[in-house]
């Protein structure tokens, strides 16, 4: 339709209002910590709170570990599926969609019941938490890398490289990975955004993280939670922004994300 509809603008306007109102309200709310005038004292409190630095640090740690583990697990797997066992693709794809079938709470329930007691004393190390986060990131990592591989026609590239004399390592590191840069970065940043703000697993597995810290703040302070909310939003926006910027021009679809 060439004609710009009035209704289109109306709907977009309503949508924008609905999206921005809570953000504006949160920001304004966070500024009300000082009586009488708007100020950043809530933010000052938050940033100087040692709990903030430590919990955010933990979340960063979890994010990095998750990203590394996820990349190591997913990229070779998807590559292998494309190249050697395409008929197993539906199986792998189904497994990667698990977090959509089994919600986080249920998975946490199952994981704890299975691994809480000896001989699996996995609660001592954060391995279970990282494993859970890897599962959370699976759909997006898988889809990202999968789309990236499809866009570059892995088979043909690999065969071409091999016919020119390249060995496996060369093929992987000189041909495949450079072309997957965009896809991998998209997956990485989305995983980052998910893990930083994650609450369910962190709280149920009793590990320190940014999510539970926010809830704790919410129970004890009035204005600081709003400030944290704004910080979290900026982080999420930045991550998605990087993904969009990195994925400019690359044939990547919009990333779908769900609730945690």
């Amino acid at each position, binding site marked *: 339709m060439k004609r710009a509809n009035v209704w289109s603008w109306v709907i977009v306007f309503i949508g924008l209002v609905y999206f921005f109102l809570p953000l504006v309200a949160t920001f304004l709310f966070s500024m009300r910590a000082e009586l009488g005038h708007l100020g950043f004292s809530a933010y000052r409190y938050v940033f100087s709170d040692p709990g903030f630095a430590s919990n955010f640090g933990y979340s960063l740690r979890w994010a990095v570990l998750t990203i590394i583990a996820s990349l190591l697990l997913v990229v070779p797997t998807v590559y292998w599926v494309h190249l050697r*066992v395409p008929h197993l693709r539906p199986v792998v794809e189904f497994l990667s969609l698990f977090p959509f079938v089994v919600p986080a709470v249920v998975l946490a329930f199952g994981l704890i019941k299975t691994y809480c007691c000896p001989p699996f004393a996995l609660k001592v190390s954060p391995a279970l938490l990282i494993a859970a986060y890897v599962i959370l990131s699976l759909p997006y990592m898988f889809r990202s890398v999968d789309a990236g591989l499809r866009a570059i026609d892995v088979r043909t590239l690999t065969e071409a490289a091999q016919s020119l004399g390249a060995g496996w390592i060369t093929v992987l590191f000189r041909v495949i990975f450079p072309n997957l840069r965009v896809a991998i970065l998209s997956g990485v940043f989305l995983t980052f955004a998910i893990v930083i703000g994650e609450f369910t697993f962190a709280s149920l597995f009793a590990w320190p993280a940014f999510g539970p810290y926010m*809830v704790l703040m919410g129970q004890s302070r009035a204005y600081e939670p709003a400030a944290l909310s704004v910080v979290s939003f900026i982080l999420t926006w930045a991550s998605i922004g990087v993904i969009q910027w990195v994925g400019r021009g690359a044939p990547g679809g919009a990333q779908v994300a769900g609730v945690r």
Partner: protein
Amino acid sequence: MSASRSRTERLGKGDAPRARPPVRALSWAWLGLLPFFLFALAFLILPSASIVFKSFQGLAETVFLKDPSRDVVDSAGLSRQWAAGGRGVSMERRGGNDAAVNWGAFAGSGGVGHDAEGNPIAGTPGEANSIASVTPQASPTPDGQPRREGSYPPRSVLINELAWSGTEASAAAEWIELFNTTTADIDLAGWTLSDGNDIQIDLAGTIPAGGYFLLERGDDTPIADIPADQIYSGALRDGGLTLDNFTELLSRRDLMRSYQASISISLITALGGGLFGFLLAYAVILGGLPKGVRTFMVTFSGVASNFAGVPLAFAFMSTLGQMGLITRAINSLLDTNIYMAGFSIYNIWGLSIVYMYFQFPLMVLVMAPALDGLRREWREAAENLGGTAWQYWRHVALPILMPSLLGAMILLFGNSFGAYATAYAFAGSRINLVTIVIGGQITGEALFNPGLGNALALGMVVVMAVCMAGYAATQRRAARWMR
């Protein structure tokens, strides 16, 4: 000649898909996926299987024998599992206290009595156990608590034998045998035998020294040819695979209400979010708006759908909470306190408004490619053949979009159904949603029956699996048409 013939044969099959690799290469290829499969097995399949399996696992129970001063003299089934016995086979005390090692199944020979249908009882009601029990010595109280004045020493009367799964004739024909280990007759008036549930027996009668006391359930028919010393009512719950957890789940009003609440919110946000999200997607992609609007909305949808969880809850508390900006604005502008008027973000409708925040964008993200796939020529062809815009939508566009629309709404439903963090951030475990209840199970708020928790979780998984299956089916439909 044969060489060329085999070559022709091979050529004849030439247009078949490339020759199957030899078996060795195939199994080697699978190996490449081993890390992933191991990971999936350990962290996806095993926990899920354990949920499924344990949800069918019934809870056995503990029976306590208390003397008139309310102290526990003996118990059976402390480990919450019947250690031995089964359908028609009794569980006998072999000695010592109520630990699993001290129970055994009826040994097989030397049984006495017959059941209602005349089958021999696999047990020794009223007689010494098939394997002679060891006489217990005086020992500290079962639970380490000091005993009251005038109470009986522990294990002076033993729960000696239990047929918790009845007789061969009927699983409900349960019976219990008590044994007096002391050298004096004991008057059982004031003694109680109970499981904390539906068995509450005030014992009556005398148990002779070194003798037995037989209780039969319901009437005197469980052991037809041996008269019971007392009849009682109530069932001894079996462990093992049962559907009890599910029947209990269905009977628990609070749990059913949690399902109802979760489903309500999910339906509301799936339909509402679906409808408005679709309109938004349409406006942005086909509404003739400048390209920048589309890019912005799609990016923002990515952000908004990821903004769920704790920060979202705080954001809405700042907006529509009791001290929220909108609440206060309405208060000062319209002089009404919406919370007094019954509104709350902590109930279903309020929570739905919050959930919409990540449902709209999800709808936009999912419908955008589908709307992109609506080819311009279809619209032109419809117009060319005389159709108006409305007729085009009614006969062509909406039917084509329907699978994607339905699929997206199913996705929205599942997304909302599985949400936890947002609701928790609002009110902790006080909101009655299925996810919150399950979360409570983990943090220790007991439903007392772990099997019930598993059943609850399984119920969730079933709902989600149905959603995903529906989604996959609609996607296949949509893909087929768009070929």
